[in-house]
């Protein structure tokens, strides 16, 4: 008989003949209920184990899928592995020869910044900002240097030196060395300087400030060594000239003794054979020939002041030949002498050179004004003297130049009013040529009182009338002739 004993959970234990004897034996020992309970317990246990086995089987299937997805060491080549991690497959979706897997690629997008490099960059940024702040602190100084360089390009060396000096003052107030400014300003002074000793000494001082004794030996500063020695030689030559002029043997010279004039000239000429000693930048002492341009200029001044006008042109030509680049030494006077001798065209060339070389100087415009005044072009003369007056509005001699133009075109009223303003200024200390020009204007207008007042001031200077003034007052020379013929001036 096959009876299925239904156990909870669905498991049935078939009652077949094979196991009947066992069951009959068991039933001999247990009651039917106890047997059923035992069978139920076994069935439950079996069911639990069966369920568990089913779950494990399902999990195993899943794992099997995953395992199948993993590269098989035996089938994945090294060339397909990520170059960074070496574990995963390269992400070929980026490009066929891409070297990294998708996981590493994502990590590479967030590549961390290096802390030391970050700190270094922050420090450098701070230093950069500090540098900018420091620059702003000296911006006025740099502005003056910029204006100085601009003035140099515009051929205004005197303005350039002024700007350099302002800049030097700013930097030196904070102990900032400004060597280059000293060197550049010394160059400008040397180029544009008048004939004064103080300027020559100023050139040497600036160079000595910029270049110390060790630096002076460097080839880079060789040019400045030369400039220093040149300026020093000029100053030393001036000393020799002064010594000669102050010689006791010539103490009685009154400007009229021809013999003594020749002796003085001979002694001055002898200086051209002499040497002078100059302090070099490296601290040594250098011997150089006397500076001929300064010597011949001094000889010109001596000849002019002693009315040896025939010699003036010769000395000016020698000055030019000795140092043609030093226009400030000879160009103005050369132009004057030429125009006085009737060679206005040559005179104009010197005026052009002078004005082109130094637009700050009034000598160029003044020379132009004189040339045009003496060649009967007063309008042009006014234009040029006005340029000079714009440069130096308070200069008395420039106003005198303008008054001379008025007188040359027979406009004494304008000349009188122009010079009268200064005459009435109590702080004005006039000079002989100024008073004489005023006297001409007053005389033309018949203002005898003003003329007398000017004559009194002239007498306080212990200066007598010049020959040309005497000729004018005697009626031998008109005012127009005074300022258009001969010397074109009161003397």
């Amino acid at each position, binding site marked *: 008989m096959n009876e299925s004993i239904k156990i909870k959970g669905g498991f049935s234990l078939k009652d077949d003949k094979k196991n009947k004897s066992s069951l009959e034996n068991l039933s001999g020992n247990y009651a039917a209920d106890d047997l059923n309970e035992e069978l139920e317990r076994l069935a439950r246990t079996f069911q639990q184990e069966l369920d568990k086995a089913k779950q494990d089987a399902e999990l195993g299937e899943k794992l099997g899928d995953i395992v199948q997805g993993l590269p098989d060491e035996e089938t994945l080549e090294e060339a397909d592995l990520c170059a960074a991690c070496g574990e995963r497959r390269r992400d070929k979706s980026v490009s066929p020869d891409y070297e990294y897997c998708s996981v590493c690629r994502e990590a590479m997008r*967030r*590549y961390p910044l290096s802390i030391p490099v970050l700190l270094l960059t922050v420090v450098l940024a701070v*230093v*950069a900002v500090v540098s*900018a702040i420091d620059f702003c602190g000296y911006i006025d100084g740099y502005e003056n240097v910029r204006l100085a360089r601009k003035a140099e390009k515009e051929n205004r060396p005197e303005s350039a030196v002024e700007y350099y000096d302002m800049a030097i003052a700013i930097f030196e107030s904070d102990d900032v*060395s400004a060597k*280059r400014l000293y060197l550049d300003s010394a160059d400008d002074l040397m180029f544009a300087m008048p004939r004064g000793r103080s300027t020559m000494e100023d050139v040497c001082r600036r160079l000595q400030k910029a270049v110390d004794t060790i630096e002076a030996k460097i080839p880079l500063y060789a040019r400045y060594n030369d400039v220093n020695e040149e300026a020093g030689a000029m100053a030393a030559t001036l000393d020799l000239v002064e010594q000669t002029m102050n010689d006791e043997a010539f103490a009685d010279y009154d400007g009229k003794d021809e013999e003594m004039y020749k002796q003085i000239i001979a002694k001055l000429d002898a200086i051209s054979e002499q040497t002078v000693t100059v302090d070099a930048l490296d601290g040594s002492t250098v011997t150089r020939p006397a500076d001929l341009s300064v010597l011949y200029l001094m000889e010109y001044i001596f000849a002019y002041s002693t009315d040896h006008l025939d010699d003036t042109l010769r000395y000016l030509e020698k000055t030019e030949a000795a140092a043609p680049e030093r226009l400030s030494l000879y160009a103005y006077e050369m132009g004057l002498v030429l125009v006085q001798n009737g060679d206005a065209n040559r005179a104009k060339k010197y005026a052009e050179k002078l004005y082109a070389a130094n637009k700050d100087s009034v000598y160029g415009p003044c020379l132009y004004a004189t040339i045009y005044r003496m060649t009967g072009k007063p309008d042009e003369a006014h234009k040029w003297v006005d340029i000079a007056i714009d440069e130096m509005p308070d200069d008395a001699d420039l106003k005198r130049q303008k008054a001379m133009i008025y007188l040359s075109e027979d406009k004494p009223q304008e000349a009188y009013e122009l010079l009268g303003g200064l005459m009435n200024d109590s702080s004005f200390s006039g000079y002989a040529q100024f008073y004489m020009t005023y006297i001409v204007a007053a005389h033309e207008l018949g203002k005898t009182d003003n003329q007398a007042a000017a004559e009194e001031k002239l007498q306080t200077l212990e200066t007598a009338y010049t020959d040309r003034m005497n000729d004018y007052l005697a009626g031998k020379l008109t005012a127009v002739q005074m300022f258009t013929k001969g010397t074109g001036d009161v003397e």
Partner: protein
Amino acid sequence: MTTLYIVTRFLTFFGAEARTFFEHLTCRILKLPIEDTRAFKPSELCAHVEHELAPKLGGAFLVCWLPFTLTTLMSCLFLLTGAYRILYIGDYSSLISWLLLWLGFSFAANCFPTFEDVLNLRDKLYGQKGHTVAKILLAPYFAVFFCGAWLERFSITFLTAGVFTAFFPQIFTVIFPLVKNIVQMSSDI
């Protein structure tokens, strides 16, 4: 040529490090995958970051422009004191000024992008249809980047940086009055 290039990067150490950092920063902003950020690697990419090329025009331009601008700006800031003190007014005794001059030179020598980045920019800018306005507006930048990157391959930017440093005061003179006005207005405020 690569050896010469690497040597010049070492000589301009700080500029090279900073430029690499700025490139790294730019790549992080653009989320470009970065492969190698070492500044001093023995290859043509010394002082540059190895990274994937930017896929779009904006990114391609930024990768070239941002490090260039930051490096050039810092170079100018260093030279404001370094070049002005030493070359403009002759303050040769200040060691700090010499240091700033060298820093300015270093940064100026390391301001250009890699040639690959520039070519990528060219492809994005001139290789596609459209973007006509961008082609015109970005043309000067592209020209500068292209010339600079090409010169850098032959280490010529080492020389151009020297020229830039030597003439910096004269170059800056162009905007000097404007800068002075700004400084004065700032101090008045």
